[in-house]
């Protein structure tokens, strides 16, 4: 078993780095876009909120696999040829952005209107109110559901194997193809996914404890 693990680990390791890379890209892109989206959702003009609502509902209502295939197979018809990796990252990020946007919206809307009143009353501009009053308070409500959505993103990244990207999922399948030993390989791969998400949960709990200063 140990011998087997040592032989297959290098392949799985490479797959793991791809999984980590794709996940990290998706998490970073969707974080930036999702925060902007949540701000637009909460404070934007009516037409913007309408557009964001349409975007969010369509993206969240579409299976992730369909989104990945759409970007990869349909974009060429629009004259955009993408390699599998960027296509998958774009599809996953677009999907995740809708989720992060909703989480940010929820966090911002849960902050009492009086906070904005008080921040306005001392003469803070919109950007200052966000930076010093609203976002620091929203962070606490944002973190738990966001970490949850990050773990979803890590698991969802396994779908990129279906457009031929050798991530942890596809690497495992390739190893199985050569060794005909599905059980130990899948167990190893599952353990790796678990380790990623478990460390995320632990990190999240630490962060939450750090921002738990506001009791309600």
């Amino acid at each position: 078993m140990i011998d087997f693990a040592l032989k297959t680990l290098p392949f799985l390791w490479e797959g793991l780095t791809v999984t980590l890379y794709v996940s990290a890209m998706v998490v970073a892109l969707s974080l930036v876009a999702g925060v902007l989206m949540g701000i637009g959702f909460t404070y934007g003009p009516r037409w913007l909120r309408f557009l964001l609502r349409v975007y969010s509902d369509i993206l969240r209502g579409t299976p992730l696999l369909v989104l990945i295939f759409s970007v990869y197979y349909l974009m060429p018809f629009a004259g955009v040829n993408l390699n599998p990796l960027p296509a998958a990252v774009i599809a996953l990020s677009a999907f995740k952005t809708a989720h992060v946007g909703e989480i940010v919206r929820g966090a911002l809307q849960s902050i009492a209107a009086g906070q904005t009143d008080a921040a306005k009353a001392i003469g803070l501009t919109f950007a200052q109110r966000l930076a010093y009053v609203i976002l620091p308070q929203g962070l606490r409500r944002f973190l738990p559901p966001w970490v949850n959505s990050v773990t979803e993103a890590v698991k969802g990244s396994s779908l990129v194997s279906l457009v031929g990207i050798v991530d942890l999922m596809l690497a495992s399948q390739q190893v199985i193809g050569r060794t005909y030993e599905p059980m130990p390989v899948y167990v190893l791969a599952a353990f790796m996914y678990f380790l990623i998400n478990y460390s995320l949960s632990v990190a999240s709990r630490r962060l939450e404890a750090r921002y738990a200063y506001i009791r309600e």
Partner: protein
Amino acid sequence: MSDALVQIRGLRKSFGTTHVLDGVDIDITKGEAVVVIGPSGSGKTTLLRCINLLETYDDGSIKVDGVEVGYDGPPGGRRRPRGESELAKIRADIGMVFQLFNLFPHLTALENVMLGLVKVRGLAKAEAKSRAEHWLNRVGLGDKLSSLPNQLSGGQQQRVGIARAVAMEPKILLLDEITSALDPELVGEVLSAVQQLARDGMTMIVVTHEMTFARDVGSRVVFMDAAKIVVDGAPRDVLSNPSHERLKTFLARIEMKHH
């Protein structure tokens, strides 16, 4: 009356078809403490919130120190609502204290007071800190500088709210029912902080149900009813010899509640 610090003319505002302000005129001179009383829904809180543009107004004029607050021009012609940065500048000179305190829960008492000094007034940290400490001392909270709002009683929180507003050295202070969320035994400490400010010559508009405020702090009492100012006079005249029928009814009802 062009020497008025606040000059309000023909102020109108409606929410849908309800007129909440239906032609309000008032002048407030520097150093005055004007107490606004009236039944719920009479428009007094809305009037206050229009002065620092937490609510927009539809028609009429509000000038603070000669500047039209809501628009770039007087009523009549075409006028543009003020943009975000203009509003921020105008609001910085108008202090406000809220019924529910609205302290920033993630900041200590000291940081609550310092935020505007550093980010809006542009003071250096050290200077802002000493000014914030000064004002927190003045309201009797010199030993609570590093407390978070949830570690303070309601009365203490409201005094932080007062320090946060006055530390900005506003031209005028708006107080919106600042004791109505407090336990009765905590009203006194907030009241005396406000009294002190009034004695120091701070111009203020006080919306309240607390008649002690009107008697002890007010240099003038204004009675609002049905979106209009109906009585405006010295506290003694307005409260002790009410001549207006609706004011009499209102005062009688308030008295009953307190006995």
